[in-house]
């Protein structure tokens, strides 16, 4: 608030000033003093209002400073940190998917070797030694497949790690949201929930329950029905 700002309603002084000048003209000291106290009361009330306003502004400035400090910490440290965490999640999921596919790819030839062994056994007549050899081969291949299945199971442990990291980032997003909402409500006195809709051309990614809005297809059958309505 500027100190040179004129009082909003100077006419509130008019009544007591008029009473004072009437009392002066009539040389009535008692009436003059009572008009002067009325004048002082109006003035006191105005000063009080000003002080109250300055106090509120100071309070909101302090509050904003606190939120600013929190936001600065979030922006400088926590957000880059969260980005690195999410990059790590991407890496972990990518590695686990490739590891799983590598293992599955390796099982194909092992199964094929059993199949070929069985065919050879049938074609060559099942002699005792050939049977023994086939049995060893089957045990070997199945052992290989079994151990790879075990590794596939192990590769799924990424879910535990990524889950923990994602949950950490979620709590950061919560905190960021709270700080921004508080800041917005200090600035304009109401909550600023205006969210920019992503442009459709970019694509929006998979449907996330509770997040995605608008009309969404429920699966491939729905897509097919829609396309056939469009004449495809």
């Amino acid at each position: 608030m500027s100190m040179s700002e004129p009082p909003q309603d100077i006419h509130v002084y008019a009544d007591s000033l008029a009473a004072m000048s009437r009392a002066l003209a009539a040389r009535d000291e008692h009436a003059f003093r009572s008009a002067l106290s009325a004048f002082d009361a109006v003035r006191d009330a105005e000063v009080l209002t000003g002080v109250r306003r300055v106090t509120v502004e100071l309070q909101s400035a302090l509050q904003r400073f606190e939120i600013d400090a929190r936001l600065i910490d979030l922006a400088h440290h926590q957000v880059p940190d969260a980005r690195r965490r999410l990059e790590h999640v991407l890496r972990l999921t990518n590695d686990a998917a490739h590891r799983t596919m590598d293992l599955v790819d390796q099982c194909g030839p092992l199964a094929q070797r059993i199949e070929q062994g069985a065919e050879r056994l049938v074609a060559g007549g099942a002699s005792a030694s050939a049977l023994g050899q086939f049995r060893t081969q089957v045990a070997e291949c199945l052992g290989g497949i079994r151990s790879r299945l075990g590794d596939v199971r192990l590769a799924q442990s990424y879910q535990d790690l990524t889950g923990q990291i994602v949950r950490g980032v979620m709590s950061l997003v919560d905190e960021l949201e709270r700080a921004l909402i508080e800041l917005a409500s200090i600035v304009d006195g109401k909550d600023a929930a205006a969210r920019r809709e992503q442009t459709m051309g970019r694509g929006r990614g998979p449907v996330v329950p509770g997040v995605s809005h608008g009309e969404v297809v429920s699966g491939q059958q729905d897509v097919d029905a829609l396309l056939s309505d469009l004449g495809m």
Partner: protein
Amino acid sequence: MSVQRSLNFLVVDDYSTMRRIVKNLLNELGYANVTEADDGATALPLLRSGSFDFLITDWNMPGMPGLELLKQVRADERLAKLPVLMLTAEAKREQIVEAAQAGVNGYVIKPFTAATLKEKIDKILSSQAAAA
């Protein structure tokens, strides 16, 4: 059928795991010639310089998204008739309508099954053959 199996496929997706899944499925269906690209911007020069018979593309990719790639393909005289299958997690009805209007030949929603992918490719190829 043997002619079809020699078709050249271009698979465009920003996730290497998804490209690998689609490529493996195509290989299992007997399509051995599969090239990969990670977004529309890298796919387009490949399409223009190569001789591809089929394009399978994701929608949501950094750089050039799949819808823009589809539009560029349809706008290019030499590529205009290329069969394009959209393989995407984009599930809004308005998006599917937009892809159809842009000239997509098929739309498969992720997560998808091997059977769905085969069915849509077969359908597109047979309608191409009927039109030829």
